[in-house]
Protein backbone atom coordinates (compact mmCIF):
# COMPACT_ATOMS: atom_id res chain seq x y z
CA UNK A 1 0.00 0.00 0.00
CA UNK A 2 1.27 3.41 -0.96
CA UNK A 3 1.40 5.81 1.94
CA UNK A 4 2.37 8.82 -0.14
CA UNK A 5 0.05 11.76 0.27
CA UNK A 6 -1.69 10.20 3.30
CA UNK A 7 -1.63 12.11 6.54
CA UNK A 8 -0.97 11.12 10.11
CA UNK A 9 -1.42 13.03 13.36
CA UNK A 10 1.06 12.28 16.17
CA UNK A 11 -0.05 13.30 19.66
CA UNK A 12 2.81 12.95 22.11
CA UNK A 13 4.47 15.30 24.58
CA UNK A 14 7.90 13.72 24.15
CA UNK A 15 9.76 16.13 21.85
CA UNK A 16 12.54 13.71 20.94
CA UNK A 17 10.25 10.84 20.11
CA UNK A 18 8.16 13.14 17.92
CA UNK A 19 11.23 14.20 15.97
CA UNK A 20 12.14 10.57 15.44
CA UNK A 21 8.62 9.61 14.39
CA UNK A 22 8.42 12.60 12.07
CA UNK A 23 11.59 11.49 10.32
CA UNK A 24 10.37 7.93 9.98
CA UNK A 25 6.83 8.75 8.85
CA UNK A 26 7.72 11.61 6.52
CA UNK A 27 10.36 9.31 5.04
CA UNK A 28 7.56 6.95 4.03
CA UNK A 29 5.79 9.76 2.22
CA UNK A 30 3.24 10.56 4.92
CA UNK A 31 2.24 14.11 5.79
CA UNK A 32 2.85 14.44 9.52
CA UNK A 33 1.02 16.80 11.86
CA UNK A 34 1.97 16.99 15.52
CA UNK A 35 0.31 17.99 18.78
CA UNK A 36 1.62 17.80 22.34
CA UNK A 37 -1.64 17.93 24.29
CA UNK A 38 -5.09 16.39 24.00
CA UNK A 39 -6.63 19.83 23.42
CA UNK A 40 -4.20 20.66 20.60
CA UNK A 41 -4.70 17.20 19.23
CA UNK A 42 -8.46 17.69 18.96
CA UNK A 43 -8.01 21.03 17.25
CA UNK A 44 -5.62 19.41 14.77
CA UNK A 45 -8.03 16.53 14.24
CA UNK A 46 -10.83 18.93 13.30
CA UNK A 47 -8.61 20.99 11.07
CA UNK A 48 -6.67 18.27 9.27
CA UNK A 49 -8.94 15.22 9.34
CA UNK A 50 -5.90 12.93 9.11
CA UNK A 51 -6.08 9.32 7.92
CA UNK A 52 -4.76 7.97 11.21
CA UNK A 53 -3.79 9.18 14.71
CA UNK A 54 -0.88 7.95 16.83
CA UNK A 55 -1.70 8.77 20.44
CA UNK A 56 0.45 8.57 23.55
CA UNK A 57 -1.44 7.39 26.59
CA UNK A 58 0.34 9.84 28.89
CA UNK A 59 0.34 13.43 27.78
CA UNK A 60 2.04 15.32 30.60
CA UNK A 61 -0.79 16.20 32.94
CA UNK A 62 -3.54 14.99 30.60
CA UNK A 63 -4.39 11.47 29.64
CA UNK A 64 -4.74 10.26 26.07
CA UNK A 65 -8.10 8.89 27.15
CA UNK A 66 -9.45 12.46 27.33
CA UNK A 67 -8.67 12.80 23.64
CA UNK A 68 -10.45 9.54 22.81
CA UNK A 69 -13.55 10.59 24.75
CA UNK A 70 -13.75 13.98 23.07
CA UNK A 71 -13.06 12.52 19.65
CA UNK A 72 -16.11 10.28 19.96
CA UNK A 73 -18.32 13.38 20.06
CA UNK A 74 -17.14 14.57 16.63
CA UNK A 75 -19.20 13.61 13.58
CA UNK A 76 -17.95 10.56 11.71
CA UNK A 77 -14.74 10.45 13.73
CA UNK A 78 -14.91 6.64 13.58
CA UNK A 79 -13.39 6.93 10.14
CA UNK A 80 -10.14 8.08 11.71
CA UNK A 81 -8.46 5.15 13.49
CA UNK A 82 -6.37 5.80 16.61
CA UNK A 83 -3.33 3.68 17.48
CA UNK A 84 -2.21 3.98 21.13
CA UNK A 85 1.46 4.22 22.09
CA UNK A 86 2.67 3.63 25.59
CA UNK A 87 5.60 2.41 27.61
CA UNK A 88 3.25 1.21 30.32
CA UNK A 89 1.92 -2.24 30.04
CA UNK A 90 -1.08 -1.45 32.16
CA UNK A 91 -3.75 -3.77 30.88
CA UNK A 92 -6.52 -1.74 32.46
CA UNK A 93 -5.51 1.41 30.62
CA UNK A 94 -5.14 -0.49 27.40
CA UNK A 95 -8.55 -2.11 27.57
CA UNK A 96 -10.06 1.23 28.54
CA UNK A 97 -8.59 2.91 25.49
CA UNK A 98 -9.79 0.11 23.24
CA UNK A 99 -13.26 0.51 24.74
CA UNK A 100 -13.10 4.21 23.94
CA UNK A 101 -12.49 3.54 20.27
CA UNK A 102 -8.74 3.04 19.81
CA UNK A 103 -8.07 0.33 17.26
CA UNK A 104 -4.61 -0.87 18.15
CA UNK A 105 -1.71 -0.64 20.55
CA UNK A 106 2.05 -0.18 20.15
CA UNK A 107 4.52 -0.67 22.95
CA UNK A 108 7.34 1.81 23.43
CA UNK A 109 10.13 1.79 22.45
CA UNK A 110 8.58 1.96 19.00
CA UNK A 111 9.69 -0.60 16.48
CA UNK A 112 9.66 1.27 13.17
CA UNK A 113 8.73 -1.71 11.03
CA UNK A 114 5.83 -2.67 13.26
CA UNK A 115 4.64 0.92 13.30
CA UNK A 116 4.50 1.19 9.52
CA UNK A 117 2.80 -2.17 9.25
CA UNK A 118 0.09 -1.12 11.67
CA UNK A 119 -0.42 2.18 9.89
CA UNK A 120 -0.84 0.40 6.59
CA UNK A 121 -3.21 -2.14 8.08
CA UNK A 122 -5.53 0.39 9.65
CA UNK A 123 -5.55 2.73 6.69
CA UNK A 124 -6.77 -0.13 4.57
CA UNK A 125 -9.33 -1.24 7.13
CA UNK A 126 -10.86 2.16 7.56
CA UNK A 127 -11.50 3.62 4.11
CA UNK A 128 -12.21 7.29 4.16
CA UNK A 129 -15.86 8.20 3.59
CA UNK A 130 -17.11 9.49 0.30
CA UNK A 131 -20.16 11.58 -0.42
CA UNK A 132 -22.56 10.44 -3.14
CA UNK A 133 -25.35 12.50 -4.59
CA UNK A 134 -28.69 11.45 -6.01
CA UNK A 135 -29.85 12.20 -9.55
CA UNK A 136 -32.29 14.84 -8.33
CA UNK A 137 -30.01 16.54 -5.82
CA UNK A 138 -30.08 20.24 -6.70
CA UNK A 139 -26.82 20.83 -4.93
CA UNK A 140 -25.00 18.46 -7.28
CA UNK A 141 -25.67 20.33 -10.52
CA UNK A 142 -22.40 21.34 -12.08
CA UNK A 143 -21.72 23.97 -14.68
CA UNK A 144 -18.73 23.02 -16.80
CA UNK A 145 -16.88 25.69 -18.70
CA UNK A 146 -14.76 24.47 -21.59
CA UNK A 147 -12.57 26.10 -24.21
CA UNK A 148 -12.72 25.38 -27.90
CA UNK A 149 -12.01 26.78 -31.33
CA UNK A 150 -14.60 27.72 -33.91
CA UNK A 151 -12.82 26.70 -37.09
CA UNK A 152 -15.51 27.00 -39.74
CA UNK A 153 -18.80 28.74 -40.21
CA UNK A 154 -21.74 28.82 -42.62
CA UNK A 155 -25.13 30.47 -42.48
CA UNK A 156 -26.75 27.90 -40.26
CA UNK A 157 -23.98 26.53 -38.12
CA UNK A 158 -20.33 26.53 -37.14
CA UNK A 159 -17.81 23.82 -36.32
CA UNK A 160 -16.56 23.86 -32.77
CA UNK A 161 -13.33 21.94 -32.22
CA UNK A 162 -12.95 20.97 -28.59
CA UNK A 163 -11.95 18.02 -26.46
CA UNK A 164 -15.51 17.15 -25.57
CA UNK A 165 -18.07 15.29 -27.63
CA UNK A 166 -21.22 17.29 -27.10
CA UNK A 167 -24.52 15.42 -27.01
CA UNK A 168 -26.74 15.89 -30.04
CA UNK A 169 -29.52 18.40 -29.31
CA UNK A 170 -27.85 20.16 -26.39
CA UNK A 171 -28.70 23.83 -25.97
CA UNK A 172 -25.66 25.90 -25.24
CA UNK A 173 -24.22 29.36 -25.68
CA UNK A 174 -20.96 29.91 -27.51
CA UNK A 175 -18.96 32.87 -26.28
CA UNK A 176 -16.48 34.23 -28.80
CA UNK A 177 -15.15 37.58 -29.89
CA UNK A 178 -15.53 36.54 -33.50
CA UNK A 179 -19.22 35.66 -33.14
CA UNK A 180 -19.83 38.94 -31.33
CA UNK A 181 -18.21 40.86 -34.15
CA UNK A 182 -20.39 39.02 -36.63
CA UNK A 183 -23.43 40.13 -34.65
CA UNK A 184 -24.13 36.56 -33.54
CA UNK A 185 -23.45 37.21 -29.86
CA UNK A 186 -27.11 37.35 -28.96
CA UNK A 187 -28.02 34.13 -30.76
CA UNK A 188 -28.32 30.93 -28.81
CA UNK A 189 -26.87 27.66 -30.05
CA UNK A 190 -27.69 24.01 -30.29
CA UNK A 191 -25.42 21.05 -30.90
CA UNK A 192 -26.56 19.06 -33.93
CA UNK A 193 -25.31 15.69 -35.12
CA UNK A 194 -22.55 13.84 -33.41
CA UNK A 195 -19.12 15.17 -32.63
CA UNK A 196 -16.65 13.73 -35.12
CA UNK A 197 -13.19 12.80 -33.99
CA UNK A 198 -10.45 14.99 -35.44
CA UNK A 199 -7.17 14.35 -33.65
CA UNK A 200 -5.64 13.78 -30.22
CA UNK A 201 -8.86 13.60 -28.28
CA UNK A 202 -10.54 16.49 -30.06
CA UNK A 203 -13.93 16.49 -31.75
CA UNK A 204 -15.58 18.68 -34.36
CA UNK A 205 -19.03 19.47 -32.99
CA UNK A 206 -21.53 21.07 -35.32
CA UNK A 207 -23.21 23.94 -33.50
CA UNK A 208 -26.29 25.49 -35.06
CA UNK A 209 -27.40 29.10 -34.74
CA UNK A 210 -30.92 28.97 -33.38
CA UNK A 211 -33.27 31.42 -35.09
CA UNK A 212 -30.68 33.25 -37.18
CA UNK A 213 -32.24 35.92 -39.41
CA UNK A 214 -31.50 36.87 -43.01
CA UNK A 215 -29.52 39.96 -42.10
CA UNK A 216 -27.09 38.01 -39.96
CA UNK A 217 -26.89 35.12 -42.39
CA UNK A 218 -25.96 37.59 -45.10
CA UNK A 219 -23.04 38.81 -43.04
CA UNK A 220 -21.69 35.28 -42.94
CA UNK A 221 -22.38 34.82 -46.64
CA UNK A 222 -20.31 37.82 -47.64
CA UNK A 223 -17.54 37.04 -45.18
CA UNK A 224 -14.16 37.51 -46.90
CA UNK A 225 -11.92 34.66 -45.71
CA UNK A 226 -13.07 31.96 -48.00
CA UNK A 227 -11.56 28.57 -47.55
CA UNK A 228 -13.85 25.67 -48.20
CA UNK A 229 -13.89 22.86 -45.72
Amino acid at each position, binding site marked *: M*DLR*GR*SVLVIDDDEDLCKLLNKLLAGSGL*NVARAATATDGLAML*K*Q*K*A*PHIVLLDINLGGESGLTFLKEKREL*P*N*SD*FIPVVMMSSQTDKRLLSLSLALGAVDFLAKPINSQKLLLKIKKHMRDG*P*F*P*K*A*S*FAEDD*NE*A*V*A*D*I*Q*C*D*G*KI*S*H*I*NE*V*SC*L*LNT*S*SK*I*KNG*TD*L*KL*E*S*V*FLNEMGLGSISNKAVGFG*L*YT*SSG*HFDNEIAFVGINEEKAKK*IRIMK*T*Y*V*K*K
Partner: protein
Amino acid sequence: MLKNNTNFKPLIISLDDDVDFNALLTKVLTKLDVETLTFTTVEPFKKMVENKKPALVIVDLNLGDKFGEGLKVIADLRQKIGDELPILVLTKRAGKEDVSAAFELGASDYLTKPLDDILLLAKIRQFIKISQGKVVQAKEETGGLSYKQIPSHQQDAYFHLGMRIQEINEFGIKITGQHFFSRGTPIKIKSPLLYDLFGEDRHYSFIVHQNWLENETGKAGAFLEFDASNEDLMAKVRTWLLQRGKSELVKLNSTAPAASSAGQTQANNAKPVTKPKA
Protein backbone atom coordinates in the same frame (compact mmCIF):
# COMPACT_ATOMS: atom_id res chain seq x y z
CA MET B 1 -29.65 5.33 -50.62
CA LEU B 2 -26.64 3.13 -51.07
CA LYS B 3 -28.13 1.24 -53.97
CA ASN B 4 -27.08 2.88 -57.15
CA ASN B 5 -27.32 2.13 -60.83
CA THR B 6 -23.70 2.67 -61.66
CA ASN B 7 -21.30 -0.24 -61.52
CA PHE B 8 -19.25 1.40 -58.86
CA LYS B 9 -19.28 -0.32 -55.52
CA PRO B 10 -17.82 1.20 -52.40
CA LEU B 11 -15.30 -1.02 -50.64
CA ILE B 12 -15.62 -2.00 -47.00
CA ILE B 13 -12.64 -3.73 -45.39
CA SER B 14 -13.03 -5.54 -42.11
CA LEU B 15 -10.53 -6.90 -39.60
CA ASP B 16 -11.62 -9.64 -37.22
CA ASP B 17 -9.77 -12.76 -36.12
CA ASP B 18 -12.97 -14.79 -36.08
CA VAL B 19 -13.47 -16.45 -39.46
CA ASP B 20 -17.11 -17.33 -38.80
CA PHE B 21 -17.87 -13.78 -37.85
CA ASN B 22 -16.26 -12.55 -41.05
CA ALA B 23 -18.49 -14.87 -43.05
CA LEU B 24 -21.55 -13.56 -41.22
CA LEU B 25 -20.48 -9.96 -41.76
CA THR B 26 -19.94 -10.54 -45.46
CA LYS B 27 -23.42 -12.01 -45.68
CA VAL B 28 -24.99 -9.09 -43.86
CA LEU B 29 -23.19 -6.58 -46.03
CA THR B 30 -24.59 -8.14 -49.21
CA LYS B 31 -27.77 -6.25 -48.35
CA LEU B 32 -25.88 -3.13 -49.30
CA ASP B 33 -24.45 -2.75 -52.74
CA VAL B 34 -20.89 -2.86 -51.53
CA GLU B 35 -17.76 -4.87 -52.04
CA THR B 36 -16.49 -6.50 -48.86
CA LEU B 37 -13.03 -7.74 -47.96
CA THR B 38 -12.33 -9.42 -44.67
CA PHE B 39 -9.00 -10.01 -42.94
CA THR B 40 -8.02 -11.97 -39.89
CA THR B 41 -4.56 -10.51 -39.39
CA VAL B 42 -3.31 -6.97 -39.04
CA GLU B 43 -0.55 -6.58 -41.61
CA PRO B 44 -2.40 -7.67 -44.77
CA PHE B 45 -5.37 -5.65 -43.57
CA LYS B 46 -3.30 -2.49 -43.20
CA LYS B 47 -1.64 -3.00 -46.57
CA MET B 48 -5.00 -3.43 -48.25
CA VAL B 49 -6.46 -0.36 -46.58
CA GLU B 50 -3.50 1.74 -47.66
CA ASN B 51 -3.64 0.48 -51.25
CA LYS B 52 -7.34 0.30 -51.91
CA LYS B 53 -8.61 3.41 -50.08
CA PRO B 54 -11.85 1.83 -48.84
CA ALA B 55 -15.00 3.82 -48.09
CA LEU B 56 -15.15 2.45 -44.57
CA VAL B 57 -13.31 -0.03 -42.36
CA ILE B 58 -14.61 -2.22 -39.57
CA VAL B 59 -12.20 -3.19 -36.80
CA ASP B 60 -12.44 -5.62 -33.90
CA LEU B 61 -10.57 -4.63 -30.73
CA ASN B 62 -9.39 -8.10 -29.69
CA LEU B 63 -7.30 -9.85 -32.27
CA GLY B 64 -6.28 -13.38 -31.39
CA ASP B 65 -4.92 -13.43 -27.90
CA LYS B 66 -3.81 -9.81 -28.14
CA PHE B 67 -6.33 -7.84 -26.13
CA GLY B 68 -6.80 -4.32 -27.37
CA GLU B 69 -4.63 -4.85 -30.44
CA GLY B 70 -7.42 -3.21 -32.44
CA LEU B 71 -6.85 0.06 -30.61
CA LYS B 72 -3.32 0.16 -31.99
CA VAL B 73 -4.67 -0.51 -35.47
CA ILE B 74 -7.10 2.42 -35.15
CA ALA B 75 -4.36 4.78 -34.03
CA ASP B 76 -2.10 3.62 -36.87
CA LEU B 77 -4.79 4.06 -39.50
CA ARG B 78 -5.57 7.55 -38.29
CA GLN B 79 -1.93 8.45 -38.54
CA LYS B 80 -1.36 6.98 -41.98
CA ILE B 81 -4.68 7.48 -43.75
CA GLY B 82 -5.89 10.68 -42.11
CA ASP B 83 -9.16 11.80 -40.59
CA GLU B 84 -11.51 11.18 -43.51
CA LEU B 85 -11.78 7.39 -43.37
CA PRO B 86 -14.70 6.23 -41.21
CA ILE B 87 -13.53 3.57 -38.75
CA LEU B 88 -16.29 1.49 -37.24
CA VAL B 89 -15.42 -0.55 -34.17
CA LEU B 90 -17.32 -3.80 -33.83
CA THR B 91 -16.35 -5.79 -30.78
CA LYS B 92 -17.34 -7.83 -27.78
CA ARG B 93 -15.55 -5.42 -25.48
CA ALA B 94 -18.34 -3.19 -24.24
CA GLY B 95 -16.49 -1.70 -21.27
CA LYS B 96 -16.82 2.03 -20.88
CA GLU B 97 -13.05 2.45 -20.90
CA ASP B 98 -12.78 0.55 -24.18
CA VAL B 99 -15.41 2.70 -25.82
CA SER B 100 -13.81 5.91 -24.69
CA ALA B 101 -10.30 4.73 -25.61
CA ALA B 102 -11.49 3.78 -29.08
CA PHE B 103 -13.08 7.19 -29.57
CA GLU B 104 -10.03 9.01 -28.30
CA LEU B 105 -7.81 7.12 -30.72
CA GLY B 106 -10.04 8.04 -33.60
CA ALA B 107 -12.84 5.53 -34.02
CA SER B 108 -15.82 7.07 -35.78
CA ASP B 109 -18.41 4.87 -34.14
CA TYR B 110 -18.75 1.84 -31.89
CA LEU B 111 -20.96 -1.21 -32.06
CA THR B 112 -20.91 -4.21 -29.78
CA LYS B 113 -21.29 -7.87 -30.64
CA PRO B 114 -23.47 -9.88 -31.05
CA LEU B 115 -23.95 -8.36 -34.46
CA ASP B 116 -27.11 -6.31 -34.85
CA ASP B 117 -27.38 -6.26 -38.63
CA ILE B 118 -30.03 -3.55 -38.89
CA LEU B 119 -28.07 -1.19 -36.68
CA LEU B 120 -24.83 -1.95 -38.51
CA LEU B 121 -26.36 -1.20 -41.89
CA ALA B 122 -27.85 2.02 -40.57
CA LYS B 123 -24.48 3.10 -39.20
CA ILE B 124 -22.75 2.32 -42.47
CA ARG B 125 -25.35 4.33 -44.36
CA GLN B 126 -24.73 7.17 -41.98
CA PHE B 127 -21.10 7.28 -43.00
CA ILE B 128 -21.04 6.60 -46.73
CA LYS B 129 -23.20 7.25 -49.70
CA ILE B 130 -22.64 7.08 -53.41
CA SER B 131 -22.71 10.14 -55.53
CA GLN B 132 -22.22 9.77 -59.29
CA GLY B 133 -20.14 6.68 -58.95
CA LYS B 134 -17.98 8.07 -56.19
CA VAL B 135 -18.12 7.57 -52.50
CA VAL B 136 -18.58 10.72 -50.51
CA GLN B 137 -18.60 10.88 -46.76
CA ALA B 138 -22.18 11.32 -45.67
CA LYS B 139 -21.12 13.93 -43.15
CA GLU B 140 -20.07 16.29 -45.91
CA GLU B 141 -23.69 16.67 -46.85
CA THR B 142 -24.68 20.00 -45.31
CA GLY B 143 -27.55 20.96 -47.55
CA GLY B 144 -25.33 22.63 -50.09
CA LEU B 145 -23.91 25.17 -47.66
CA SER B 146 -20.17 25.13 -47.66
CA TYR B 147 -18.15 26.06 -44.62
CA LYS B 148 -15.85 29.04 -44.55
CA GLN B 149 -12.72 28.91 -42.51
CA ILE B 150 -12.32 31.37 -39.69
CA PRO B 151 -8.85 32.95 -39.35
CA SER B 152 -6.96 31.07 -36.66
CA HIS B 153 -6.43 34.09 -34.39
CA GLN B 154 -10.19 34.59 -34.20
CA GLN B 155 -11.17 31.02 -33.42
CA ASP B 156 -11.09 31.10 -29.63
CA ALA B 157 -14.38 30.39 -27.93
CA TYR B 158 -15.75 28.97 -24.73
CA PHE B 159 -19.05 27.47 -23.72
CA HIS B 160 -20.91 25.95 -20.80
CA LEU B 161 -22.31 22.45 -20.47
CA GLY B 162 -24.44 20.98 -17.72
CA MET B 163 -23.24 17.88 -15.87
CA ARG B 164 -23.85 16.48 -12.38
CA ILE B 165 -21.56 15.67 -9.51
CA GLN B 166 -22.13 12.03 -8.67
CA GLU B 167 -19.55 11.58 -5.99
CA ILE B 168 -16.86 13.40 -4.09
CA ASN B 169 -14.24 11.29 -2.38
CA GLU B 170 -10.89 12.18 -0.92
CA PHE B 171 -9.19 11.75 -4.29
CA GLY B 172 -11.44 13.80 -6.49
CA ILE B 173 -14.79 14.49 -8.06
CA LYS B 174 -16.80 12.15 -10.24
CA ILE B 175 -19.08 13.92 -12.71
CA THR B 176 -21.67 12.34 -14.99
CA GLY B 177 -23.91 13.54 -17.77
CA GLN B 178 -24.42 13.36 -21.48
CA HIS B 179 -21.21 14.91 -22.71
CA PHE B 180 -17.93 13.10 -23.14
CA PHE B 181 -14.68 14.75 -22.11
CA SER B 182 -11.31 13.46 -23.30
CA ARG B 183 -8.59 12.74 -20.78
CA GLY B 184 -6.41 15.75 -20.14
CA THR B 185 -9.14 18.26 -20.97
CA PRO B 186 -8.84 21.38 -18.84
CA ILE B 187 -12.29 22.31 -17.57
CA LYS B 188 -13.72 24.77 -15.09
CA ILE B 189 -16.47 23.55 -12.83
CA LYS B 190 -18.92 25.45 -10.68
CA SER B 191 -21.43 23.84 -8.36
CA PRO B 192 -23.22 24.54 -5.07
CA LEU B 193 -21.33 21.55 -3.66
CA LEU B 194 -17.94 23.05 -4.49
CA TYR B 195 -19.08 26.36 -3.03
CA ASP B 196 -19.78 24.48 0.17
CA LEU B 197 -16.48 22.62 -0.01
CA PHE B 198 -14.05 25.37 -1.03
CA GLY B 199 -15.97 28.42 0.18
CA GLU B 200 -16.21 30.45 -3.01
CA ASP B 201 -19.04 30.60 -5.52
CA ARG B 202 -16.92 30.44 -8.65
CA HIS B 203 -15.51 28.10 -11.28
CA TYR B 204 -12.65 25.88 -10.13
CA SER B 205 -10.09 24.53 -12.61
CA PHE B 206 -9.49 20.83 -13.02
CA ILE B 207 -8.10 18.46 -15.58
CA VAL B 208 -10.03 15.40 -16.68
CA HIS B 209 -8.05 12.54 -15.29
CA GLN B 210 -10.21 9.58 -16.23
CA ASN B 211 -13.30 9.20 -18.38
CA TRP B 212 -15.90 6.67 -19.45
CA LEU B 213 -18.77 6.36 -21.88
CA GLU B 214 -21.64 3.91 -21.79
CA ASN B 215 -22.26 2.95 -25.37
CA GLU B 216 -25.84 1.87 -24.86
CA THR B 217 -27.20 4.82 -22.91
CA GLY B 218 -24.78 7.44 -24.17
CA LYS B 219 -24.12 8.39 -20.58
CA ALA B 220 -20.65 9.75 -20.01
CA GLY B 221 -18.58 10.58 -16.99
CA ALA B 222 -15.25 11.95 -15.91
CA PHE B 223 -13.06 11.88 -12.84
CA LEU B 224 -11.41 15.13 -11.79
CA GLU B 225 -8.56 14.57 -9.41
CA PHE B 226 -7.58 16.74 -6.46
CA ASP B 227 -3.99 17.89 -6.22
CA ALA B 228 -2.70 15.39 -3.66
CA SER B 229 0.48 17.38 -3.10
CA ASN B 230 -1.53 20.26 -1.67
CA GLU B 231 -1.93 19.06 1.92
CA ASP B 232 -4.07 22.05 2.95
CA LEU B 233 -6.51 21.33 0.18
CA MET B 234 -6.61 17.62 1.00
CA ALA B 235 -7.24 18.38 4.69
CA LYS B 236 -10.10 20.67 3.65
CA VAL B 237 -11.63 17.91 1.55
CA ARG B 238 -11.32 15.29 4.30
CA THR B 239 -12.77 17.61 6.93
CA TRP B 240 -15.67 18.38 4.63
CA LEU B 241 -16.28 14.69 3.93
CA LEU B 242 -16.40 13.95 7.65
CA GLN B 243 -18.73 16.85 8.36
CA ARG B 244 -21.11 16.16 5.56
CA GLY B 245 -24.28 14.14 6.11
CA LYS B 246 -23.39 11.96 9.08
CA SER B 247 -25.93 9.22 8.62
CA GLU B 248 -25.38 9.14 4.87
CA LEU B 249 -21.67 8.61 5.33
CA VAL B 250 -22.03 5.99 8.02
CA LYS B 251 -24.37 4.06 5.80
CA LEU B 252 -21.89 4.27 2.96
CA ASN B 253 -19.13 2.94 5.10
CA SER B 254 -20.78 -0.42 5.52
CA THR B 255 -20.56 -0.96 1.76
CA ALA B 256 -17.47 1.11 1.30
CA PRO B 257 -14.47 -1.21 0.88
CA ALA B 258 -15.15 -2.11 -2.75
CA ALA B 259 -16.25 1.34 -3.80
CA SER B 260 -13.48 3.20 -2.13
CA SER B 261 -10.81 0.86 -3.34
CA ALA B 262 -11.97 1.75 -6.83
CA GLY B 263 -11.37 5.36 -5.93
CA GLN B 264 -7.96 4.47 -4.65
CA THR B 265 -6.98 2.72 -7.85
CA GLN B 266 -7.92 5.78 -9.76
CA ALA B 267 -5.81 7.92 -7.53
CA ASN B 268 -2.90 5.54 -7.40
CA ASN B 269 -2.57 5.58 -11.17
CA ALA B 270 -2.67 9.29 -10.92
CA LYS B 271 -0.15 11.92 -11.50
CA PRO B 272 -1.10 14.95 -9.49
CA VAL B 273 -2.23 17.41 -12.09
CA THR B 274 -5.28 19.12 -10.73
CA LYS B 275 -5.39 22.21 -8.68
CA PRO B 276 -8.42 24.12 -7.60
CA LYS B 277 -6.98 27.61 -7.59
CA ALA B 278 -7.62 28.37 -3.98
